[in-house]
C-alpha cells in the first residue's frame, strides 16, 4: 500500500489526482475517480457557475468521497465559479493559468484545500506565499495548455522551493511514472490523459478510439506564437493550425481558428475540425477500463518498483 502525506491531508486512498480537463472532466468522471480512491476533479474550463454547481451536485450524489474542481483563472466566468466552489464547500480546488491569490481568502474561509498548477519556480513562490496548500508541478508532456519545462526538470526544482506538498503532472500514465514522481520529490501524481480511456469518461467514442490508437509521437504542440501553447493529437485540425501559425495569418484570426474546436472533439468526435487534446502519454494508454481499475493498477505497479529501488544501491 502506497503511503503519501497527500492521502492523509485529503482523506483519499491512493496518491492520484485526476486532471481537471475542460469539457471532459464532469461530475460523473470526478465521482468515479474519487469513488475509486483517487481525487476526482470537475474541470470548470470556460463554463458558467451554474454548470459547475450542477456538476458538483452530480458528483456529490454519486460518491461521499472528497472531490474537487479545477478552475481556469482566465475563464470569463471565473468570479462566479470561484464563488460557487466556496458556497458548495468543495473539498479541493486546483487552479490553472495564473495566480489565484485574489480568491484565496474566501476559499480558505470555506475550508477549501487550494492547489494551484505551477509551471515554474517563480510561480511556485508566488502561489505558496499567497497561501497555497500544495502545488501541482505540471511539465510540458501534459495535454491541453502546456508550459515549456518538462516534468523531469520542473518537479525537483519546484520541490526545492515549495515548502508544501508537490504533485507531479505531465507524462505520467502508469506505475513507472508514479514511482518516478516520488523519486523526483513529489508525493502524488496528477493524471489526465489515461483517464480519457475510463468507462466513466463521457467523451465521444472516436476521441477514445484515437487515444487508444495513439503512438509515442502522436501529439503536437500548437499556438506557441499566441503565448499559450496547447498539446493535442496530430489531426487534420491541429496540422492546419500548425501551418497557419507559421503563415502570415494575424494573431486574432489564429486565435479565432481555435475557438470551439475542443467541444467539437469531445461532443461530436469531429476528426476534421476538432481539437483532440492529449498528453504525450497517450501512447501509453492501451485499453478502456473503469476509473477505479486505472487507479489501482497504477498504484499496484508503482509499489514493487519503489520497494525494489534498493537494488540500485550496494
Amino acid at each position, binding site marked *: 500500500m502506497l503511503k503519501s502525506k497527500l492521502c492523509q491531508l485529503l482523506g483519499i486512498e491512493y496518491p492520484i489526482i485526476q486532471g481537471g480537463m475542460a469539457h471532459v472532466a464532469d461530475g460523473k468522471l470526478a465521482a468515479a475517480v474519487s469513488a475509486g480512491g483517487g481525487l476526482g476533479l470537475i474541470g470548470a474550463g470556460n463554463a458558467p457557475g451554474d454548470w459547475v454547481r450542477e456538476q458538483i451536485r452530480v458528483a456529490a450524489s454519486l460518491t461521499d468521497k472528497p472531490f474537487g474542481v479545477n478552475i481556469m483563472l482566465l475563464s470569463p466566468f471565473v468570479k462566479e465559479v470561484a464563488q460557487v466552489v466556496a458556497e458548495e464547500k468543495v473539498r479541493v480546488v486546483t487552479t490553472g493559468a*495564473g*495566480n489565484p*491569490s*485574489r480568491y484565496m481568502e474566501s476559499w480558505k474561509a470555506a475550508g477549501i484545500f487550494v492547489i494551484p498548477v505551477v*509551471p*515554474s*519556480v*517563480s*510561480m511556485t*513562490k*508566488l502561489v505558496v*506565499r*499567497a497561501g497555497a496548500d500544495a502545488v501541482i508541478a505540471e511539465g510540458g508532456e501534459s495535454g491541453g495548455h502546456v*508550459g*515549456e519545462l518538462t516534468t523531469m526538470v520542473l518537479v525537483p526544482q519546484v520541490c526545492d522551493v515549495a515548502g508544501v506538498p508537490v504533485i507531479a503532472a505531465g507524462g505520467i500514465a502508469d506505475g513507472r511514472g508514479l514511482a518516478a514522481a516520488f523519486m523526483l520529490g513529489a508525493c502524488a501524481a496528477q493524471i489526465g490523459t489515461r483517464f480519457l480511456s475510463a468507462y466513466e469518461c463521457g467523451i465521444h467514442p472516436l476521441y477514445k478510439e484515437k487515444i487508444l490508437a495513439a503512438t509515442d509521437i502522436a501529439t503536437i504542440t500548437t499556438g506557441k506564437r499566441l*503565448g499559450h501553447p496547447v498539446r493535442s493529437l496530430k489531426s487534420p485540425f491541429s496540422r492546419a493550425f500548425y501551418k497557419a501559425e507559421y503563415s502570415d495569418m494575424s494573431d486574432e484570426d489564429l486565435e479565432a481558428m481555435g475557438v470551439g474546436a475542443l467541444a467539437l472533439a469531445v461532443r461530436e468526435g469531429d476528426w476534421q475540425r476538432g481539437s483532440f487534446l492529449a498528453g504525450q502519454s497517450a501512447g501509453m494508454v492501451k485499453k478502456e477500463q473503469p476509473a477505479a481499475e486505472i487507479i489501482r493498477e497504477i498504484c499496484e505497479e508503482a509499489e514493487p518498483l519503489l520497494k525494489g529501488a534498493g537494488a540500485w544501491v550496494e
Partner: protein
Amino acid sequence: MVFDAIKKLIVEFNDSDPDAITLETTFKDLGIDSLDTAELLINLEETVGKEIELDEEVTTVGDLVAFVEKKLKE
C-alpha cells in the same frame, strides 16, 4: 526610480536594449510572458525589499511602474 529599477531588471533578464524601454513599451513587445513576469516580480521584490502582490493585469512597463509605486506607498 521604480522605472529605472524595472528597466535594469528587464535588461538583465533578456538583454533588451535599454533605450528601447519606455513607459509605453508592452511586455509582449519585449518578449516577456506571464511566467517571465512572475520571475521579474520576485527579482523586483529583492531590489525594493518589499513583497508585491501583483493582483492587476499589467500590459505595459508603465502599468507595472504605476502598480509598484502604488504598492510601495501602502
